[in-house]
């Protein structure tokens, strides 16, 4: 008699207990799912971190490599430029081997013309120089470079005449008759002659124009100076204006 009552009494709680269990179960399941999810997230996060770590390392390596290759490329460019220069130089040098002698010949011809055009100063020296070089150029026993060097030196001597004062004694007087005279060259600006009786200036028409006695004294002074027997001083000499 007592048992049904109990059962009845128990029935309602039994129903409730079932629902609770299910809820409990669901709740537990959710917790488990959350835990598992969190584990996956942890793993993902660890992976992400590791990837970031790797990336950072790779980035710094990429930066280094970029700088390094930049530098290498610059060096390569410089080296290639050097190669190009040497190449060009080699071409020039190879070409010059054949061009040097014709150049020396041209320079020699121009030198002869220059001496012919100039006032007649240091004629012996300059003509002998030209004769020597002419002989050298035709001599196959010397290299083209040596021939060129000699002609170039001759030209340099010619250029130097423009900067200096020089004097020489000649065996003709200022009119060209046999006698003695002193020729004085003041750079390439003036060329003068003085002998016992007269003085003259080489003019644009390539002849001697007579000068007065004051000029003669000054020319003599210039000659003494040019020979190093007087300290250099200012000269006052007639000069042609164009």
């Amino acid at each position, binding site marked *: 008699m007592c048992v049904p009552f109990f059962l009845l009494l128990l029935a309602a709680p039994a129903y409730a207990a079932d629902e609770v269990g299910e809820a409990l179960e669901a709740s537990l399941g959710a917790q488990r799912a959350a835990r598992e*999810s969190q584990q996956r997230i942890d793993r993902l996060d660890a992976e992400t971190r590791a990837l970031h770590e790797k990336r950072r390392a790779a*980035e710094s390596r*990429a930066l280094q490599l970029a700088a390094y290759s930049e530098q290498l490329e610059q060096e390569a460019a410089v080296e290639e430029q050097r190669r190009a220069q*040497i190449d060009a130089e080699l071409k020039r040098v190879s070409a010059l081997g054949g061009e040097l002698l014709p150049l020396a010949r041209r320079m020699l011809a121009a030198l002869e013309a220059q001496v012919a055009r100039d006032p007649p100063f240091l004629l012996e020296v300059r003509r002998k120089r030209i004769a020597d070089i002419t002989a050298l150029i035709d001599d196959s026993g010397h290299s083209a470079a040596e021939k060129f060097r000699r002609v170039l030196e001759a030209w340099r001597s010619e250029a130097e005449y423009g900067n*200096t004062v020089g004097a020489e004694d000649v065996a003709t007087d200022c009119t060209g008759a046999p006698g003695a005279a002193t020729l004085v060259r003041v750079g390439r600006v003036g060329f003068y002659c003085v002998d016992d009786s007269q003085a003259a200036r080489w003019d644009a028409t390539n002849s001697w124009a007579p000068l007065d006695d004051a000029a003669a004294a000054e020319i003599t002074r210039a000659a003494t100076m*040019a020979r190093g027997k007087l300290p250099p001083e200012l000269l006052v000499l007639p000069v042609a204006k164009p």
Partner: protein
Amino acid sequence: MRRLFVALLLLSAGAASAQAPVQGDLLKQVRDSSRAAAQANAEREQRFTRARNEAAARLAAVQADVRANEARAAGARRRWEAAHRQAAELDRRLAVASRDLDTAYDAARGAAVDLHDAAQASLVTAQFPGRMAELAPLAASATRPGLAELEQIWQALQFDIAQAGAVQQFAASLVTEEGSAPRTVLRVGVFAAIADGEYFALHAGGKALVELDRQPSWRHRRIARRFEQAEGVAPMVLDPARGALLLAEANRPGLFERLWHSGVGGYFIGAILLLALALAVAQPLWLRSRLILDEQSVGVVAGVLAAFALVQLLLWGPREPAAHEEEVAMVSLLSEQPQAGDDEPAPPEPPPPPPPPVTVPPESGAAGLPALAAPVAGPVSRIQMPVKIAGGGSLTGAGFGGFARGSGTGAGTYGRGQGFRGKPLIPLSTARPQMPEWACKQNIKGWVEAVFTVLPSGRVQDVKIVDAQPRGVYEIAAIESISHWIYAETDRAAEVKQRVPMDPADCAFNWR
């Protein structure tokens, strides 16, 4: 009994749960919330997955970048190696090919360098400033010149020859205090440049002209002016030293300057001169007033007295020593030969007897150098100061080298050219060196030998150490100290070699 108790307990528990607020919604609620949680979790997971994927993608990109850069570096290295190998091979072939041409190259290089250097000191360059730009690369080139360059050198020589003989008017750029100004200048070869009776010198570097600070005498200026106005041939002043003599002429003191600078003797002579002039005027007037002389005789007496004054003037002029002294300022060597324990400057020699008016040793006029610029074989070289020195780069090569070679000769004496009166250069003001602390502590005694330039302004420039004892202690202090020395103003720069004793006693004066 016990079972009943348990049942009751259960019942009460069951009743308690049955009494939950919304019975039956519980499960739904739990399920909903766990579904929401699951969704949230799924979203979080997705987010993290995305983050990881992004990170992976970025890593992949960076790694690709690394690989690209590696490839780039490897490529660059290959390029460099190839170029290097080829360059070496070309170099070898070049050496073989140019072996026979080296003579020509050396000659060309020498010519180019000389042309360039000469052009910097040539009036021609003032007219054609552009030619420096052509000559500079030829002179500075490290590679072997080709045909074009050789022709260029030859043409430059021809140009030089043509211009050296030219008398030409041109528009020069003139360096003035305010800057630069154009001016039409007449150039006479390489020997003079004039305009309106004024002479010009080459500014440092050669591209511009500068008016001489002091012009030569009125006679030279008149010659220049007449030459400018003349047609055809006219006398002209030519400077065989291409500028240096004009400068010396310009700096020669005039009559009144000499009178002013020559001290008591000059004043005395000047007084006699004035007296003579006064007599020349007063005496005839007085005689005339006393009717002792007629008018014609007045002129005679005045003439005689004027002639007396003139003779006085002429006699006085060349005897004046001050003129020469100022022209040639020499340099003292206060101590020269390194001697153990000799830290004192050598005592000055008694001055040599005054020279005759012209005592310049003869030197080749053709060389174009004024003899007064070269104290023969002396340990001291004077620097010529062409009006203005740019930068201070002029103290190179010959000057300094000559010095080094000469050291040890002429010990303890003043460096003097033949026949020149040397004026010892003694600083007006010396600066005490700032001694290094540690040297003070160790009580190091020593000296420093230095070479330096004294500018015309009296300032010191280009201090260089020649020797020191002990080395590496006081050099810096010495350089700094000497740089602040001040000498008397002169008209020339001078190069001075001096040994400065360094005494640790000076440490007491150190600036702290």
